[in-house]
């Protein structure tokens, strides 16, 4: 009999991940698949918290669900034609080879994981936060990657807005 309550939470979040990933694979509606991606990332955030990485769980929710999903929704609305049934539909091709490859990859990974024989259990610290530890590490050992990530994000976002903003300005001029 399982005595720890966090095991139940783990299976709850794992069920969310597996179910919504399967829905994301099989649905043809692109908007539905964006929302399935949302619940998959929410489940991943739950797993982060259960692995006592609370800061990463919150970051996952803020960045992915608050930022990236919104970006995906905007791109879906901008870059798709509405078909006859008022849905944005994606085609499914290469169904056989894709599923065979995916199952093969999963079996290979699962065999490797089971053969490696990790006997340890994850330790769960309910009263310990990783925020201060991450902050100290960011300012001492990881200060160069931190600054580099800042410049990288700056360049990427400027580039993205230049590439996409060009489109909007040109459209306005044409009108």
């Amino acid at each position: 009999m399982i005595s720890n309550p966090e095991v139940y939470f783990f299976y709850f979040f794992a069920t969310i991940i597996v179910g919504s990933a399967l829905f994301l694979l099989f649905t043809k509606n692109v908007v539905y698949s964006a929302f399935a991606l949302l619940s998959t990332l929410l489940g991943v955030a739950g797993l982060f918290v259960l692995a006592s990485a609370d800061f990463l769980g919150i970051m996952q929710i803020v960045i992915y669900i608050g930022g990236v999903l919104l970006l995906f929704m905007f791109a879906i609305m901008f870059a798709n034609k509405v078909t006859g049934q008022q849905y944005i539909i994606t085609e499914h091709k290469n169904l056989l080879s894709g599923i065979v490859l995916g199952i093969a990859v999963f079996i290979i990974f699962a065999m490797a994981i089971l053969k490696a024989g990790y006997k340890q259990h994850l330790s769960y610290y309910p009263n310990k936060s990783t925020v201060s530890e991450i902050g100290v590490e960011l300012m001492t050992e990881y200060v160069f990657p931190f600054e580099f990530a800042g410049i990288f994000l700056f360049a990427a976002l400027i580039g993205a807005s230049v590439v996409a903003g060009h489109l909007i300005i040109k459209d306005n001029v044409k009108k």
Partner: protein
Amino acid sequence: MIPSTHFLIVAAFLFAMGIMILIVKRNAIAALMGIELMLNAVNINLVVFSNLNRQIDGQMFVIFVIVVAVAEAAVGLALLLQVYKNYRTSDLDKITKLKG
């Protein structure tokens, strides 16, 4: 006390789903969703091993992976808008010409 193998199996499943979505879906945005799933599967593995080794390094790496994933999504979707403007489609099989 969750067994680490369960976490790793879930991550492997998520990675396999990402590959399947990337191959099966023909809409460019849906293919980008598959890439996001694969990056998240890798993040789960990094967090699990960071917990097992009682070191924070894995979590630091996850932060930088998330930074790269966000930049990739932003630039990819911006490029996709331009591609859509030229081809009037976001179907990956119909985008075949280099010069639009």
